[in-house]
């Protein structure tokens, strides 16, 4: 009995080790293509927190108060327009619930530029 348990224990340890190696390799592989700084800012709950309201490829558990952020190049050929929406969408649409990230100093101009860069990759 004790022997059997010992063997099972050993097997479990071995499986855990293999899993750990595989996971580590996976983490290593993804580390080779680091997220754009704008992606980090966009997904950070204390910064853009865009996923609270928008579905964005690469983000988990998105909300749906705003439209999915996809095909950005097609939808916003004018970068100024997209930047303006992030800066203060209430200018275009007074009823929007989108926070005015620039006007209310939630994000700096540089952070908004970085997020806009990232959005053009979606």
């Amino acid at each position: 009995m004790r022997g059997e348990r010992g063997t099972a224990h050993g097997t479990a340890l071995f499986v855990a080790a293999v899993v750990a190696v595989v996971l580590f390799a996976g983490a290593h592989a993804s580390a080779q293509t680091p997220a754009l700084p704008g992606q980090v800012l966009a997904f950070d709950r204390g910064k853009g927190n865009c996923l609270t309201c928008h579905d964005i490829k690469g983000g988990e558990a998105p909300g749906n108060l705003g439209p999915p952020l996809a095909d950005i190049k097609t939808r916003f050929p004018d970068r100024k327009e997209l930047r303006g929406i992030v800066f203060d969408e209430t200018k275009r649409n007074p009823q929007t619930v989108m926070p005015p990230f620039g006007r209310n100093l939630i994000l700096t101009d540089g952070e908004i530029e970085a997020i806009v860069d990232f959005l053009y990759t979606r």
Partner: protein
Amino acid sequence: MRISRAIASVVVTMMIAALVVAGARPAAAADTIDPDADFKAFRAYFTKLFPNVPLNDFVNGPYSMDAELRKQWEAIDDFPPYDFAIDRGKQMFATAFKNGKTYGDCFPEKGIGIRQNYPYFDDKTGEVITLELELNRCREANGEEPYSYVKDEMASLTAYMAFTSRGKPFDIKIPNDPRALAAYQKGAEYFYARRGQLNFSCASCHVQNPGNHIRTEVLAPALGIVAAMPIYRSEWSGMGTMSRRLVTCNSQVRGVPLKPQDELYRDVEYYLSYMSNGLPVSGPGTRP
């Protein structure tokens, strides 16, 4: 003074007009205070938006909006996490203060089955009295220290009082008294005014976006939103009162919360409760 007041009045009128135009405030004319017309517009807005939600189901908040969430709720509700609060509240009601009086002595019907009548306008003091405020005034009148408004003992007391009132339709009265109408109107304006760094009003979520998701959370409709109070929130790992909900809402939009039971918060509760007239008390409730 007169000029600044006039400007403030114009600003408020414009603000409400803008909201009405876009449909954010389902209300009647902005220049007169007409709670009954507001009530009809508010009710019509939500029932039109959710034609398949039975009227009395709005008190179940996000569960009335989302089938999957409702299934999880029904599973949890076999052993509701607020049960301990009801038991504790019941015990507190049965225990006398040091002077021999009880909570029941402070309320009509000994405090049983009366939750649906709160808040009410007190024509003697000219202010809105909520259940939480009345409970602490009861304690103080009997020589006891007031409780924190946001959770623990206060939530246990209101949980028990709500439980004894379950199913009773909200019956909030706004007497034809300019002070009562002003309190109602201030509550409505607070509810629809944007605030905080994130620039949200209460209505941004609970009127403009009920049923929608912020991350995985389903936003509750403003219609019936007071009915389940107090609530056990998983996010809080415990019970919270109406006061707690208002304070956390303000913080979440990076605004500055008022003090629990501030006059304005009571006015907001007055407005929202009047909008829920006719809907059944469902508290205490659970929310994710």
